[in-house]
């Protein structure tokens, strides 16, 4: 695991804050990695927000869900990489998740549902449903409850890059 500052970010308006990388098999060795990493990163990036404690709590909640998604990957090799950058009230999380072709298809479909405005209905029906929350529900919740925007970049054979913008500073809750 390292947390060196990022040297290249596609959007220059976003300022690099922290970067974490970990071999996926190491990450998958303990479920608590999700909790520990989300708590640590949340504290690191929130100290200069208008309400550091509240921001840290919200960021940790959102980021932990993303890491839990990554934890459920079916591809045992590769590296989990995460970069957090900031532009004004928005934190951008760039998460590279090793995953299978089938999983990549799922992510593409989920983002499509969100872009087509089907997210809210699908999310609400999942809350009242019997099934355990799927990865799709978790991503939909980020959009609905955290006003997040999601997009996919660099979908290739072994990994996807999820880019999530979280405007937590402006959230009312």
């Amino acid at each position, binding site marked *: 695991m390292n947390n060196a500052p990022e040297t290249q970010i596609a959007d220059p308006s976003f300022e690099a804050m922290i970067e974490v990388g970990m071999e996926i098999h190491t990450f998958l060795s303990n479920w608590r990695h999700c909790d520990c990493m989300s708590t640590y990163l949340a504290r690191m990036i929130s*100290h200069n927000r208008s309400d550091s404690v509240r921001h840290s709590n919200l960021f940790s909640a959102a980021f932990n869900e993303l890491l839990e998604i990554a934890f459920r990957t079916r591809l045992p090799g590769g590296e989990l990489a995460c970069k957090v950058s900031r532009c004004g009230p928005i934190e951008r999380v760039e998460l590279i998740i090793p995953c299978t072709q089938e999983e990549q298809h799922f992510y593409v479909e989920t983002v499509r549902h969100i872009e087509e405005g089907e997210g809210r209905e699908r999310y609400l029906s999942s809350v009242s449903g019997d099934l355990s929350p799927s990865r799709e*529900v*978790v991503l939909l919740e980020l959009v609905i409850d955290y006003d997040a925007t999601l997009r996919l970049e660099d979908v290739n054979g072994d990994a996807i890059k999820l880019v999530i913008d979280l405007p937590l500073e402006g959230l009312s*809750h």
Partner: protein
Amino acid sequence: MTPFDSFPRFRAQYDGNNQEFSISGVLRPQSIEELAPSMALLRESIARVRGVFHLNIRRLTQMNNTAFHAFSRVLLDACRARPDLKFVVITSSVVGWTTQKFGRLSGIEPNIAVEEYDREFYPGQSFLEDGGFIPILRTQTKMTWRHERTVLPRHGMRSGIAMADICCGIGDFAVLAQKEFQPARIVALDHSKSSLAYARRVAADFDVRGIEYTYGDASEMLLDDDQFDLVTCRHSLQIFNKPELILKELYRICKPGGRVYVTNEKMSHCLGEPRSETIQWTYDELAKLFAYFNMDLEMGPKNRRYLVDAGFQDVRAESFMVTNLDGDPQDFADIVQSWEDTFAGEMSLRRGDSREFVDRFRQGFQDHIFSALHPKGYAGWPVWVASGRKPS
């Protein structure tokens, strides 16, 4: 066993007397099987109750979707199986996402209500939150600071420390502390969003950096254990009906070996000459008025006992008197005028005091102002200070 296994996680328990199931801490299981004992307890608890079932998640700081789905599934199933029951989920405004997340259950089952326990909060807060009171709060801090800047080093204040100011109000004490003592870190917490907004504006206007203003409930803070070398809580324990709960939290966030510093008043000891008798009567009545609203403005000399009872060691206690001779006497007069406006105004009105009482009540404040501005007069407002060390 890995190092992770020793981390504190969550707690679930049932209080039969209050028909209340509570979950606290961080709840991020990998699978619902990890929650099996808690889920079983929740089902058993629901089976035992009649009328209203409370699910208390005030102190739940994190809950992942796996856990949320598991607990909400039990609630939704119970709603259908027990239409005779009402379910009330008690959340905290400090962890706002819980209200939103659990609020969705209300839309599915009308028998589920979600209530933020601190929406209508501390009895004294509404009287003091009014924006008109802010200038006087600043004047009060300016006058007490003349004393506290020399008092504080005897109670653990020094440069480079990590400090928290709990119930920081409009944040002016934190600014003064930062300028005078340069702590390495200051977290300033309050439960008034309007006061915090004011504090942030002032900090921005004066380019004051390094103070983390945060919204929170002093009796149930999100701050971690053992973080601060010095925790201050000024003029606040006296307006809470359960000060021991706040002290427990102050103790928790203080580092072992660090100190908790509190100030409180004993308003019946406010004094003035001339016209001492009418002044005395009014401040005696003021203490009774606050007691009516479950606030103890006589707490000052009890500081020491409260700290000892909370488990602190090396408890140090002292007092100082803010007087009309501290700087401009008009500042003192302005403070007393604001007390009269608020206490003989809205508070007295809300208690239902008679016109005759209010007139006499106001007269004591006016006489206090008279003594403050009198060329030979003396007016005082005593403040009690105490601090205790958290055992190492």
